[in-house]
Each structure stands twice: as structure tokens, then as C-alpha cells.
């Protein structure tokens, strides 16, 4: 811990806690998951940054989407995202969630993930190196410090539009709205 951070710790302890313990739910959609085992094990050791993998979305506050998103996985991604407690941050890993990547004209792969759930940051590349995850994590720290990682607030605010987009892609959704009051406006 940096000594200069002590002021921040006294001022906003909860925020600093969230920031330095990013517990990750890895969503193993595509080929990107191949980069995750070296990241969490001793070679690159993600725990140096407070990043550890967790079993369920209820324990996580960072959502890492590794690889292309097909229509069927999008459904699971939305459900996972909605189960995570706030504050929650999303990072898209690899070029496929950004704009489809090599699946840009696929019949079954959605192209822009941020049309369906808010995404705080992207790691570009096909595949990105494990170091890129740490760059993203440190970048996310500064974003949390400055209050810029506000994807979950945006989701709450514009849930109506997100839900509409989700229904356009998936048809009728099986689950009830996460924010029913906001949706009525």
C-alpha cells in the first residue's frame, strides 16, 4: 500500500476496499479463457493486484468477459451481471466483445457487447497478453478513484433502454426486470 493513500483510506474506506480487492467472475465464453490460468496462477499471479477468481457472481465485483459472445451466452451474461452486487465493474477482454472481431458477420455472434450491458473498459487484442489484464486493472483503479467506472449506475439509470436492446436480440426475456420502478418511467 502506498503511504500517500492513507488519506483516501480514512476518507472513503469502502471504496478503497472495493478497489484493491477486485474479485473476478471470469466468463469463459470463448478462446480468451486460455489466458486466465496463467494470470491467476504463480507465473503472473493476479493476487498481487488483489484480483482473485471466485465461484459465483454473488461474490464478485469485476466481470471479465473473455471472448466472443453468442446469442445464447449473452443471455447467461446478462443474468450473471444482474446477480452481481454493486458496485460492479465490467471489462471486455479481446476484440470480439468490442465489435465482433473476426465474427463481425456471424449469424449467431452479437457484435457490440456494450449495447446490452454497460462495459467500463476494453482490453483490445486477439489475444491480449496476461500483462494487459494488469494494465486494465491498474487503469480501473484510477477510474474508480476518479468515479469514472460508473457502468452499474448507468445500467440503473438507463435500464429501460438496455432491456429494450436485450429483448431485441433475445426475444422475450424469461426473467422479470431488475429495476422495475425505473423501467416504468
Amino acid at each position: 500500500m502506498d503511504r500517500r493513500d492513507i488519506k483516501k483510506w480514512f476518507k472513503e474506506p469502502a471504496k478503497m476496499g472495493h478497489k484493491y480487492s477486485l474479485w473476478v467472475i471470469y466468463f469463459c465464453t470463448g478462446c480468451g479463457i486460455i489466458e486466465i490460468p496463467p494470470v491467476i496462477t504463480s507465473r503472473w499471479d493476479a493476487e498481487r493486484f488483489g484480483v482473485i477468481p471466485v465461484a459465483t457472481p454473488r461474490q464478485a465485483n469485476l466481470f471479465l468477459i473473455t471472448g466472443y459472445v453468442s446469442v445464447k451466452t449473452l443471455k447467461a451474461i446478462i443474468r450473471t451481471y444482474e446477480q452481481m452486487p454493486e458496485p460492479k465493474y465490467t471489462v471486455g477482454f479481446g476484440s470480439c466483445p468490442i465489435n465482433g472481431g473476426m465474427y463481425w458477420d456471424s449469424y449467431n455472434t452479437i457484435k457490440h457487447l456494450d449495447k446490452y450491458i454497460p462495459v467500463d473498459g476494453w482490453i483490445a487484442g486477439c489475444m491480449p497478453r496476461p500483462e494487459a489484464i494488469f494494465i486494465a486493472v491498474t487503469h480501473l483503479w484510477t477510474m474508480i478513484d476518479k468515479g469514472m467506472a460508473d457502468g452499474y449506475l448507468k445500467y440503473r439509470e438507463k435500464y429501460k433502454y438496455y432491456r429494450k436492446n436485450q429483448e431485441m436480440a433475445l426475444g422475450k426475456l424469461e426473467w422479470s426486470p431488475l429495476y422495475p420502478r425505473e423501467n416504468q418511467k
Partner: protein
Amino acid sequence: MTEGGYVGVTASSMIMTNKKLKEELESTFKDIQVIVPEDTRLNITAREEDALTILKFLKDRGFNFLTLISCVDWIKENEFELVYIITSYLQKNDEYTQREKLQIILKTRISRTIPESKTVTPIFSNAEVYERELHELFGIKFEGNQRLIPLFLEREYKIPPFRKDFDTREYVKEVFDKIPFV
């Protein structure tokens, strides 16, 4: 030379089994083409009506495992080509017999305008899933398969998406590109 052992199988003896099977197939079935491209391969091209009996014939010879059913869309010839790949499970753990090294590829062609074929589930019950897949992605109907329900796809498509005349770019423009950014 041990009988049936891995060490004992020489290239020449493999060719002998292939040739023997080839002769047997050619003598029992009409309108059949059998090619031996490699020592461990056997390519059969046959009519669609004969496919079921050939598969039964091969299963009786000990080729008891259907590896997969695949499909090729020959759009210019207006035909689908069904490809059945058949092998045999190992009888003993670390010894191959000559039969178990052989992979058999059976190709039949069906019409593209009326894409229908008979199911092979009575012979190989694991064909059910492959037939479901082909039904979904190519729109081929398999008569007799009771379970041709959707397998992978969530959305509905006018043309089955693996056919050559399905324009993916057009589809993406129509569906995914029209969804606005938030």
C-alpha cells in the same frame, strides 16, 4: 509377427484388409464406388437408398461406432452431400487390430430442393444429435427421427444458416446492426 498386435500390423497387411472389404462391398452393392486413398482409409460413395444397408453391413463387420455425420452444400449442383464417418472402438486397451485402425467415410448425395433423408438412429443411436444439428443448420429432414427439435440456435432464421445461400452480412445488417447504442 504377433497376430492382431500393433507391431504386427504392417502396411501391406492393412492394404489386404482394405482390399478385402472393398471387394466384399462391391460384390454386395450395386452403384457403389470404393476408393482406398490411404492404408487406414476407405471412401465409399453410394446412393442415398443404399446408405442404411451399407451402414448395417459395416456394423455387422465390427465397425460399431459412428464418429460423426456431416454435410456439404454443393450449391451449383443443387445437392447436399451427407458424410458418415465410421470407425471401430478398441477391443483391447493397448493393442490395435487391423479393423480398429480403419476409418470409413460414406458419402451420399440428396436433393437440395427436397432435403430429406432416412434416419440412421435404428443402427447408430448416437446419430440422433447429429441429425438434430443438420436439421437445424442445413434444414435437412430425417424421416423417422422423433426428436428434431432446436439444438444450438436461439433465433429463428428464414434460411438455415449453414447453407451457402444464407447471406450472413445481410443478416447481421438486418438484426444486430439495427440495435442502437445506449
